């Protein structure tokens, strides 16, 4: 192995890091199905998969429909206990042959690799995304990072094929410093990409919260030193193992805030369903709290409260809308209300990407919009902040409206139109807030479902693929 160039922390960083301790966590993870098959899981876990379910899954082992190769099966004890009481959680975490019935889909649907200047970094917007861990405490079957977690080989821009690597502190810091230096020297814009300064980094994976406090602290310190103003941590650990957010973790955060008071932290949490954080009575119903609202799982609520207490930390929830898990307006209404009540913002809901095997999980775009819209009826303005987004190659796009009003002369127009609005576009955001209008297609799960019915394409979501609006075609 070539000698690695080490990152050298500053004095402030060293002083901060010297205060950090790692907690002890026993997640009691079960990985793989072998233990379920041979019956060596703990007594109470036996029967989590029925004999028939296991037979059907194991039959696919080693074939191109191998479920464990698509996405390793993994669950914590905490999540298992919630799954026992929830059909939605079971669908989320239990492997099922329907995942590989149809292997249609793209290995890198957001074309992320074309925005990766160094290993483990995606720099697409003013926000950079780094992969710092390649696993999570448990695994969602619908995972949209499955290529990283299952360590799949993917094709890079330059044609080489390799598994996605993780970010290294030194590489990322060097990149940020160099990028921002060029931007500053060129009066605020990068000379080649026209991007602004990199001000925000999202730590992602996998789940950064599987890392120890010291490891997380090294990232927080180094990114702050490099001039990053806002750090986001994308995590589902509040659902999988809320005890991870213990005293040692919050002590680390407080020491970090003391050392770097100007850096803002945003926890991007990932709850898909209220069953992941609400307590239930023996009949499986949520429990009304005497002081209003519903009773939470104590450990989850305690962790959320600890975050909410710290004014310099924001907590936002984002979740895809997934078939069989949360394609349910009532569940989403309860989730949005309870999260907001406890200090968690409802940020985005999004449409599943067309990753390999997506068909088992994707909800059509128009249906997802309808479900979210229904769920927000009866919510107050602040509770109903979340929008439905879908990630176009050009950037994050909102499914702004689905209408029922007749729009004659267009395929699908007899049912109305769908309006997409580009929320953010890559590089220097030239097309922000532009819209595209298409005729409806109730079955569409991706933009491609609208190729033959584009009415107006100001946002150029389709024209960038040489797909013209119908009016342009008619005029030819």
């Amino acid at each position, binding site marked *: 192995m070539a000698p690695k160039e080490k990152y050298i922390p500053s004095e402030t960083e060293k002083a901060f890091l010297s205060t950090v301790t790692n907690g002890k966590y026993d997640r009691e*993870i079960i990985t793989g199905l072998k233990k379920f098959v041979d019956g060596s899981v703990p007594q109470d876990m036996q029967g989590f998969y029925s004999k028939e379910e296991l037979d059907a899954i194991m039959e696919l082992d080693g074939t191109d429909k191998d479920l464990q190769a698509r996405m390793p099966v993994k669950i914590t004890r905490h999540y298992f206990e919630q799954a026992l009481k929830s059909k939605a959680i079971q669908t989320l975490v239990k492997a099922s042959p329907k995942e590989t019935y149809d292997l249609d889909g793209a290995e890198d649907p957001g074309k992320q690799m074309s925005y990766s200047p160094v290993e483990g970094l995606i720099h697409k917007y003013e926000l950079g995304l780094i992969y710092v861990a390649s696993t999570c405490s448990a695994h969602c079957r619908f995972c949209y990072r499955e290529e990283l977690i299952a360590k799949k080989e993917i094709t890079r821009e330059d044609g080489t094929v390799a598994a996605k690597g993780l970010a290294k502190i030194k590489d990322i810091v060097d990149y940020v410093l160099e990028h921002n230096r060029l931007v500053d020297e060129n009066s605020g814009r990068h000379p080649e990409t026209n991007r602004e300064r990199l001000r925000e980094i999202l730590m992602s994976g996998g789940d950064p919260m*599987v890392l*120890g406090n010291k490891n997380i602290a090294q990232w927080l310190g180094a990114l702050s030193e490099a001039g990053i103003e806002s750090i986001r941590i994308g995590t589902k650990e509040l659902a999988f193992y809320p005890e991870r957010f213990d005293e040692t973790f919050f002590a680390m955060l407080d020491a970090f805030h003391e050392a770097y008071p100007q850096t803002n932290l945003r926890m991007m949490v990932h709850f898909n369903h209220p069953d992941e954080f609400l307590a239930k009575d023996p009949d499986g119903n949520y429990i009304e709290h005497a002081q209003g609202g519903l009773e939470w799982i104590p450990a989850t609520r305690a962790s959320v409260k600890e975050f909410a207490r710290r004014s310099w930390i924001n907590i936002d929830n984002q979740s895809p809308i997934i078939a069989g898990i949360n394609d349910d307006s009532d569940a989403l209404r309860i989730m949005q209300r309870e999260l907001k009540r406890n200090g968690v913002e409802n940020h985005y809901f999004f449409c599943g990407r067309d990753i390999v095997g997506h068909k088992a999980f994707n909800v059509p775009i128009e249906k997802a919009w309808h479900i979210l819209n229904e769920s927000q009826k009866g919510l107050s303005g602040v509770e109903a902040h979340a929008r439905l987004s879908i990630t176009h190659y050009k950037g994050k796009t909102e499914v702004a409206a689905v209408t029922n009003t007749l729009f004659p002369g267009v395929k699908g127009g007899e049912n109305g139109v769908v309006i997409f609005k580009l929320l953010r576009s890559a590089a220097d955001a030239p097309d922000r807030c532009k819209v595209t209008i298409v005729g409806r297609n109730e079955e569409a799960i991706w933009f491609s479902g609208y190729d033959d019915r584009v009415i107006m394409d100001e946002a150029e979501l389709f024209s960038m693929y040489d797909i013209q609006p119908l009016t342009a075609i008619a005029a030819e």
Partner: protein
Amino acid sequence: MTYVVTDNCIQCKYTDCVEVCPVECFYEGPNFLVIHPGECIDCDDCVDVCPANAIFNEDDLPEDKKHFLALNEELAQIWPQITDQKDPLPDAAKWDGVAGKLEHLDKSVPEG
């Protein structure tokens, strides 16, 4: 499930595994390292970096190494945690691949 350190680490103790483990779940004795089965998050990162090929996924343990699971569990309770990479033991290369190393395992708890 967990990952398990097996006999070929004994007397080697190259600590490349410690360097990559994201959760620092390795524990160190005088001439052997073990993984804490509850703390390991099954990321698989340590397997490829171990120069002695001593680390196995619990499910892939060969029949004759199965007892190392219990040994890892037992020793992780009593040995101190190791978080930084160290130099291998002086005779590491010589011991690499030597059969029947288990009898050389020193289970004592280091002082201090």
